Structure formats: structure tokens, C-alpha cells
């Protein structure tokens, strides 16, 4: 069996690099954006503000 690739740095070690925390924040933000864009809430809100067929609905809405 070949050695494990050194992606694991030990369970107790904490990620100290700023870029890693930034990546994590970006992942959370992207997932939040994905949820918002695919939720029924946004088209409803758009309609409430008088926009009956938002442009992005052409792609993400039913």
C-alpha cells in the first residue's frame, strides 16, 4: 500500500493559514448564494416588489 498523501496534518492541528479560513468563508458564502438562488423565496420577494419574472428565474426557477 503506498503512503498516505500528506493532506492530513494530524487531527489536533488547527488551520492557521488565513487563506484557508478565507476559503472556508467563501465556501459558506457560495452555499448561501446557491440556496438563495434556488429557493422559492426569491421569486416571491421579487414579485412582491413588482418584478414578476426576474432574469435569473429563467435559469433557476421552475
Amino acid at each position, binding site marked *: 500500500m503506498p503512503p498516505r*498523501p500528506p493532506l492530513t496534518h494530524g487531527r489536533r492541528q488547527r488551520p492557521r493559514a488565513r487563506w484557508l479560513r478565507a476559503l472556508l468563508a467563501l465556501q459558506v458564502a457560495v452555499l448561501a448564494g446557491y440556496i438563495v438562488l434556488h429557493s422559492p423565496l426569491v421569486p416571491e420577494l421579487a414579485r412582491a416588489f413588482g418584478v414578476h419574472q426576474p432574469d435569473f428565474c429563467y435559469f433557476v426557477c421552475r
Partner: protein
Amino acid sequence: MSAFAGVVAIVAAAVFGFIASRCWRGVERALVAAVLAYVGLATVLSWVGGIGALWRRGLLRLPGGALITAAALLVAAAAAWRHLPREQKSERWARPWRWEVAAVTTAAGVLTLSVVSHAIRPPAGFDALSYHLPMSIALFHEGTLTAPVSFIHAQWLAGQPPGNFPLSYPGAAESVDGLLLGSLGEYSVWLPQTVAAVVLALAVGQLAVSLHGRPWLPVAAVLGCPLVIFQAPSAYNDLVAVACLAVAVVLLTSSDATRGRLLVAALALGGAVATKTVMLPVAVALLVIVGVRAGLRARRAAPALLILVVAFLAPAAAWWARDAAMFRNPLFPVALSLGPVHFQGLPTSTYGLAAQQRNFVPTPLAWPAYPVFEKFSDTSGYGAVFLVVAAPAVLLSTLRPALRRTWVWRAWLVATLVSLAAAVAFPLPTPRFQLLPVALTCAFCGLVTQLWSSYRRIVVVLALTAVLVTAAVAVDRLRPTFTAPIDRASFYAATGYVEPAASRLGAGARIWDDVSWSDYAFAAVYGLSGTHQDQRVFVGALDGRTPRQACGALPTRTDAIYVVADAEVPPARVTATYAEPMFTPVFTVSRLGPHGVQRRSLFAVTPRCQRLSGL
């Protein structure tokens, strides 16, 4: 008898796969067995149809074609029993953690829901109804490989625009679908793609194991991918082709690249190309890796490489030989220029995909952001796990030299670059042609759960949320399927642009489906063929012709003309072509379909017109 013979051929393929994979273990054995069963069945069917074309006899027709295929597969199984390579060792899968069980169960549950809700209804999906299934019917109706050429190419040979049917070529998956149609009936055509979806997920899991990651999140990512959920129950061929490629990647990147693994990898790559010509660039690129690994391990490289090339060519050879003989272009209908040599055909730019990219992105510049606002359909959607976990995992892996030196990472890089380059160069801008790189990327999300503990906990929460969100949106987008009629006639009347009366003209009826006035007329082709696929449907466009000219352009003994026209098309344009005394109007009705209102008309062809016809 036909049904029995078809089942015997399918069982023989399964036996061949089971026996020929005997020396593999675990998940890898399941992958090898599935790919060998499919490639074996499709290859033998193509050779039987090819020999039938040479002899001008319908050898492929049921039950004879299925019995010949079954006999050939059983002989191959007996040969595999006697000449097996040594045992192939492979890495085992770790037991899933609880959150991984939850992720896989959720994704598999939605996929099952999609498959069951489609499988209890007749076949659906625009591409399946307009050219995949009609090609399957034509293959077994005429019994030779030349059948689709005379059937679906009729419109192109008559100088009409072709639609995007070239994407179904060469036709390996369609030949298997045709066998299923003729044996188990139309409610079984979801089988190849659904099995391919599971094989693809397992292959990606095995790749994660090869990377020393955990396999379960990658499996959940693939099973829960919207493109997989929506396409698995339909008679398309993307999942079958990508599953073949993914299994090839598993085998060619194995730490123990044995002769048996590389041979099956070459066969799987050939199977992918025989299923979909579009896969040729990436299959050839991966074949180069197979060749490099074979060359590195063999004492005499030339014979080993020759065997691999033969294995790669075998599954598609009969199809390519047909096209080379008929059109002097082995990759027909794809137009191809190799230096001074020009193969005649249709440039990929005429397939309409560039125009269709408006269905996925507002502007071509928005493609990099596509995964964020992706549409969920049978041609679109990678899922939130790919976006939020897998893509960052690949970024992390590029920072690790030890990972970059693995064959999995190299194969991922090659597949991704070649797929993207082919999409830009040809151009073929559609999300489903990037499914292989997306699936391979998902293998890397098996690594992130091994990162630092604080990071891992957050990533696990993100991954689970992503699986749940994708599943919830997929169930929401599946709602129209849940409420669609189950009865065949009502189903196609509601979703397939076919009036029940037109699909019940009687066995042997010959129908001309005119696609001049609406693209949705293409989707009527399969429904018009009737419950037992015993009505023959020809596709063409005769807009602007006089009734007499239209009669001259029709196939001989055409009984009826079926027209679907968009609401904005003036009725006079249709009746100018199909006018009395050559044609007799039977009915015209306006219906609200999935894409607005269309008029559906049926015209009877008079004996006077039939005497003029003869395409």
C-alpha cells in the same frame, strides 16, 4: 419468442460480465462486470448488425439477432473462464460514518424517487423521444446497422436541417435500448442509464479510495447530482458513456496497473466512444495514459500497445466501418478536417448547441458562474456538493505535490483540460459534456473530510447541507413528473405533443412527421410509433412545397401526415402544403403543452398522392 430471445441476450451479457470479472474483488469487480456486460453486448449487436448490412439481411431482427448475440456472448464467457489474468488486488472501502450514511441515503433516495416516478410512465425526455428511441426502433426493425442512416438521415439527405441527432451517434446505447424495447417493452428503457448512474457513483467512490480518501461523500455527490437524477430514468446515453469513461479512469489510475486492468480500461474507453462520438477527444487522451502505463510496465511495449489499440477500436469498429463505407467518413455525421484530408458531414456548429446555451447561461461569459445558478434538468445541473466541497478540494489537492504525482490527479487534469478544450473548439457548450470532469472532481471531496479537525467539522456540515439542499430542489423540480398522467396516450398527449388518435392508426401505418413549423414536432416521433412501436415514423420538413411537390418528397406508401405547429404559425402555411385533393384533413386541435400552445393536425395521404411519392 422475441421477448424471450431478448431476455436471453441480456442474461448472456450479464453472465459474460460476471465471469470475465471473476478475478477482480469488491467494488472494482462490480464496475468491471457492468462495463464488460454493456460493452460486450453492444459490440456483438453492432457486429451482427454490420454483417447483416453486408449480406443485406436483417440479422439483427428479433428473435434471431438476440439469439446470435447470446450465443456469441456465451462463447466469450467460456473463453474468459479459461483464460483469466491473475487476481487483481484493490483497495477496500472504509465503513461509512453516520453522517455519510445520511448523505448517501438522501441522494440515493431522490434518485430512486426520480427513477420510479419515470419508470411507471412511458419513456420521456426530448432527446430520447426525438432521436435516441426512434434510432433503437429502426435498428431492430430493419435489422442492419444501415437502418438509422436510411431512417433518421432521410431529412438530411433531402437537404433538410438535421436537428441534433448526431449526438446519439454511433449508437451502442441505442442498440441496447432497442433490445430492451423488443424484449421487456418500453417500460424498461430506463435500465441502462440507471445502472450507469450507480456505476458512475461507485467508480468515483473507488477513485476517492485510490486517493486514500473516503468514498461515501463522492458517491453521494454523484448520486445526488441533478443531471444524474433527471437523466438516469431516460433513454439518453450521456450517463452510459461517462460511466464507461469513469470505470476506465479507475482502472488506468490503479496503483497496480496490471495487464488485465489496462485491457479492460481500453475496452471501456472504446465503449464510451461507441456510445457517443463526442467523447472521442477525452477517450483518446485517456488512452494515451493507458499506453504510457502499459509501456512503462511491459518488457516489449509494441505488442502490448497493439492489443490495447485493438481493444479500444473493437466496440465502435462496426459503426465506423459502416460510416466509412457509406459516407467515406468513419465519424459521420461529424464533419472532420485532419490537415489536407476532409471528411464530409455536418459541422458540430450546426447541431444548435451554441444557440441552446441560452437555456443555461444568460451570456457565454457567465459559464464560469454556471454551477451557482444552474438549472435542474436532464441536461443541466452538477449539484451543490460539487460547487461547495469538491471544487475547493481539487484546489487544495493541487497544493500537495504528493497528490499531484498520483495517476488519479493526472487523469483528472487530462480529462478536465481535454473536455473543456473540446467544448470550446468544436464548439459544444452544454453542461452534460462536462459530466466526466465534474464526476472526477467529486472524487476529491473524499479527501477534505480528512483535513484538520476544526476545518473538517465545518466541511462536514457544509457537505451535508449541500446534499440536502440539492435533494430538496431536485424533488421540487420533479413535481411535474409526479403529477403527469400514467396512461400512455394521455401521457404523450400532455407531454409528448402526440394526439392519441395519431398513435393508434394501426400496425404498419407509415406517418410523415413534419417538423417545419415547430421544434416540438421532433418530440412526437417516438409517441407516434405506437404502443408496440409498430407504426413507422419518418421525419422531415416540407414547408413551402406545393402539395404535388410534397407528395414527391414523401416516402413510398405514406399513410398520414402529422403536424405540430406553434401558435404563431398561420394555419394557411400548413394547409398550403397539405391541401386537397392530395391530402385530406382528419383533425386539427390546439393543445397547451409543456412549452405553450401548439396546433396538432393529422392529414390522410390520398392514393393519388401516394402514386407520386417515393423518397
